[in-house]
């Protein structure tokens, strides 16, 4: 029957529940806004960063106790599976995956790991979301203090300042990596959709 064939075709791509979709697009928007638009270290930047961290935390909770394709167990990180998937693509074999395909799974973990580094370092620098500039000011004060006393005068201050700078460097490097990974992710989805002839974007928008 035509109806059941249509349904079988639908099941060829993963079905994403509302929570997966919400956190996905929420994080995508946050990464784009904070990576390209908002003022670095500004109040908006900090609030968006906190929101992104919340989305990530929620998605990770959902990966542990969520349903079906959203769970980590549905897409374990596996290099050998990823290699097999690349071979599938090269030989244009179509295989259905009920969750992320093995290559996409690696990308998901890479994105989450990088986002975790970006948000945690950002939060460590910004301090409380209700007084987001406080951390900044304190840091500038410390820089001034360290400048006054000279680095060898106060080793403790110097060490804290260095820690702050390291945080900032890690934050920026990870943020750039995150943008690069996001671009690769978009490219990968486009390529996979084209090669397999299955629209992978639609389920992330509409669910199935």
């Amino acid at each position, binding site marked *: *029957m035509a109806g*059941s064939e249509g*349904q079988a075709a639908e099941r060829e791509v993963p*079905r*994403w*529940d*509302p*929570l997966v*979709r*919400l*956190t996905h697009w*929420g994080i995508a928007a946050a990464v784009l806004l904070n990576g390209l638009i908002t003022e670095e270290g500004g109040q908006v930047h900090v609030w968006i960063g*906190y*929101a992104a*961290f*919340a*989305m990530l*935390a*929620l998605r990770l*909770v*959902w990966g542990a*106790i*969520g*349903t*079906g394709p959203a769970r980590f167990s549905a897409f374990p990180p596996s290099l050998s599976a990823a290699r097999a998937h690349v071979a599938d693509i090269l030989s244009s074999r179509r295989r259905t995956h009920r969750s992320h395909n093995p290559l996409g799974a690696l990308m998901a973990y890479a994105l989450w790991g990088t986002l975790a580094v970006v948000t945690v370092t950002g*939060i460590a620098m910004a*301090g*409380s*979301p*209700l*007084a987001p500039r*406080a*951390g900044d000011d304190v840091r500038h004060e410390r820089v001034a203090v360290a400048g006054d006393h000279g680095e060898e005068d106060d080793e403790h201050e110097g060490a804290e300042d260095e820690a702050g700078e390291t945080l900032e460097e890690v934050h920026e490097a990870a943020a750039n990596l995150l943008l690069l990974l996001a671009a690769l992710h978009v490219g990968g989805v486009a390529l996979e959709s084209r090669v397999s002839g299955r629209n992978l974007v639609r389920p992330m928008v*509409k*669910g*199935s």
Partner: protein
Amino acid sequence: MPWRLPYRWSTALGGRRATALALILALQAMAAVFFVGDVVADVTFEGVDLHLVLEAVVAFALILGVVFGAFEMRRTLERAERSDTALSAARGAMTDLIETRFAEWGLTPAENEVALLALKGFDVAAIAGLRGAASGTVRAQLARVYAKSGVASRAELLSIFMDDLIAAPVTKTPADAGPAQHHPRGR
């Protein structure tokens, strides 16, 4: 004239309830993170006082709310998924049942198709239109279907399957049940 069910079963993933739950969970998660961030910063800068303890309790409650909300959401989604699965299992079982009966009655391919359309609720004129055949032809084919199955009308034809389904719960192999224990058809 295409014929459709008047409504579609709501699917697990498009459900409004699940979407609303997801939104609430996201808001709760954000609130929890902001609160925890504030509490941690306050502890670092100001030390512990009653105000802070209360804030910590609120933050903890929010986190609990997120986790329990997530469990609730999973239950909602799984329930909806189950009803979808049950429906498609029933659909598959019904198809098996129909195919088995049609084979038993020795319907020709044309009769098979006409009988299926009749079961789905198309009338003679609609079936004729769909098959590009004359109404007389379809009426004659239907008459042969009724004769082979031992019924007098479309309603009775349908009742054979309804009886099979209602007398015994739908299982994966409903066709295994012998015809003897079924509806007393006028043969």
